[in-house]
């Protein structure tokens, strides 16, 4: 009886190991596919620029704030997305561009966009430029208008400096006048 139960246990363990091995293989396979064709997590510009050759031709996800403006070229557009370190040019068809509300600049923090597309270390379509040809694009976070901080102290300084420059200027005029006399 003990022997039979031992055999049964052994078979169970073997089955479990087989299943486990199967799922491990599936997991590794899935990981490899993801790794070679698309990176599920957004990749930083720093990582892309430092390993441009490795990512060349790969499907990637990249996130960044839209800066400058939307540059329209016939049926396509160029965007420049800044992720805090560097900005990268994104090339995409006009019809997939979402409604951009804020573009990054002095007065606004631009919309945070996420693009999925092919990264080119030296794009053959764009004569060697480093770019991403986006196939999917979405707004992750809407931008906002920034408030300007105006220094009260500087305003006071301006008054004093205006007064002192006026006084010095008058002194120079008086000095020249006395010299001529």
């Amino acid at each position, binding site marked *: 009886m003990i022997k039979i139960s031992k055999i049964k246990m052994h078979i169970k363990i073997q089955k479990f190991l087989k299943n486990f091995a199967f799922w491990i293989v599936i997991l590794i396979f899935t990981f490899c596919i993801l790794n070679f064709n698309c990176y599920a997590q957004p990749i930083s510009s720093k990582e892309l*620029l*430092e390993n*441009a*050759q490795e990512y060349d031709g790969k499907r990637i996800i990249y996130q960044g704030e839209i*800066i*400058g*403006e939307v*540059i*329209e*070229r016939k049926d396509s*557009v*160029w965007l*420049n997305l*800044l992720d805090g370190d*560097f*900005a990268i*040019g994104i*090339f995409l068809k006009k019809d997939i561009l979402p409604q951009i509300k804020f573009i*990054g*600049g*002095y*007065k606004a*923090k631009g919309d945070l966009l996420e693009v999925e597309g092919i990264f080119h*270390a*030296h794009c*053959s379509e*764009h*004569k*060697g*430029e*480093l*770019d991403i040809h986006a196939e999917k694009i979405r707004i992750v976070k809407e931008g906002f208008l920034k408030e*300007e*901080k*105006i*220094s009260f102290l*500087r*305003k006071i*300084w*301006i008054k004093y*400096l*205006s007064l*002192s*420059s006026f006084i*010095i*200027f008058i*002194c*120079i005029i008086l*000095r020249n006048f006395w010299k001529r006399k």
Partner: protein
Amino acid sequence: MLIRPGIGDIRLIFYHIGKIIIIVGFSLLFPLFTAIFFQEKAPQIDFLFSFLLFLNIGLFLTLFFKIEKEIRWMHAMVIVSLSWLFMAILGAIPLYLSGHWGSFLDAVFEAMSGFATTGLTLAKDPEHLSMAHQMWRHLMQFIGGQGIVIMALSFLGKGLGGVFRIYIGEAREEKIFPNIIDTARFMWVLSIIYLLLGSFILGGILRLEGFSLKSAFFQGLFIFMAGFATGGFTPYSQSILYYHSFSFELATIFIMFLGMINFKLHYSLWTGNRKEFWRDIEIITLSFTIFSTFLLVAMGLSEKGIYPQAIALFRQGFYQLISAHTGTGYMTIYAKEFIKGWLGLAMVGIIIAMGLGGATCSTAGGIKALRIGLVFKAFLQDVKQLMQPDNTVLVEKFHHIRDFVLEDRYVRSAATIFLAYLILYFLGAIVGMLCGYPFLEALFESTSAGANVGLSCGITSPSMPTILKITYIFEMWIGRLEFVAIFTLWGFIIALVKGK
């Protein structure tokens, strides 16, 4: 025996510096008007404050240091070298107030890089900088390209005595007209005509390339100001890559060429004397050096095989090379690509091009084509002489505006400055290496600073060591004024301390 400069000498120097500060201070009105136009309130305060500060310091110096005295060579050189230092410090104030520079030293670095037309930047997040501050950054380069003192000369006219000596002190040697004031004014008039034409063309290209009208106009203006001055600042950290336009890149190549040519050659071209252009030793030398350095870059890039097509190799290789040779520093690649893809022969080609620089009496920096041409010609003459019988004397000539006989004094002067630049590049590289950077990268960045180029392989950043920031500030200052004025300032300081 060293003669200690008297109080009169110091008064004379600071009196003229005061005048220059006032004149340059008025240029702060441009960013102020830009701030008003774009309704940027904080920059309006910053620039009004800075303008008044310039005015106060300038007026104070002219009031308390006024003296009637002839400007000697020593005074002229000290006025020029100190003016540039003062401008870097004062010009940094509005930048620092914006909060986009980590420290005042970073802002001074930026201002020196601006006035010296280098283009290396320590700006944090320039994408969110106000249009007024962008105007100031690019205007500094436009003014610095022509020369701070040239600007003062154009406005002050007879008010500034000893003008020729001051003019020479700012690394200018040639007069277009017999009168220096007329020469200075011609340079400014020519630059403003080019500014109007160039901004219109660049703006037009950008408009056709999908930019809005207002943006196209201002981007065109900024890029022309920094491009013609062979400066290299751009409103965005991606440099010229931001625009994604081949036609725009071609236009900027043309503008960089304009900036690197001698102002006297511009005059010849404008007066219809086109033959003069191809006869000049500088143009012949530049043709040779551009071709040979491009060959190095192209071979280096082909060897690496990083560009898929010949057009891509030409676009990226030639653009970076011209940008380096003219001393501009515009980039269509990322700084990291120099290390990752260009390391080796291509990078060496770029370093050589940066070191050589453009023409004399232009907005470009570096050793300069005239000096390279003269040293090369002298070397050839020596070789030819060896081939002749002993009693034969060879007379070599060169053409630069007019015909000259190649004399030892010209060659000695050219070779001295040539050597001084090489020492400057290597000293900067040694400091870079002491900070832990590899030799080639340290040499690249040092040459870029010393030759006032502005290309970067990634070393220049707000987080780089303070000692390196100071080293590059000095390199930019010394490189722009071509040594003599700075050495005289050191001599002046030593005489103040040790003189009798």
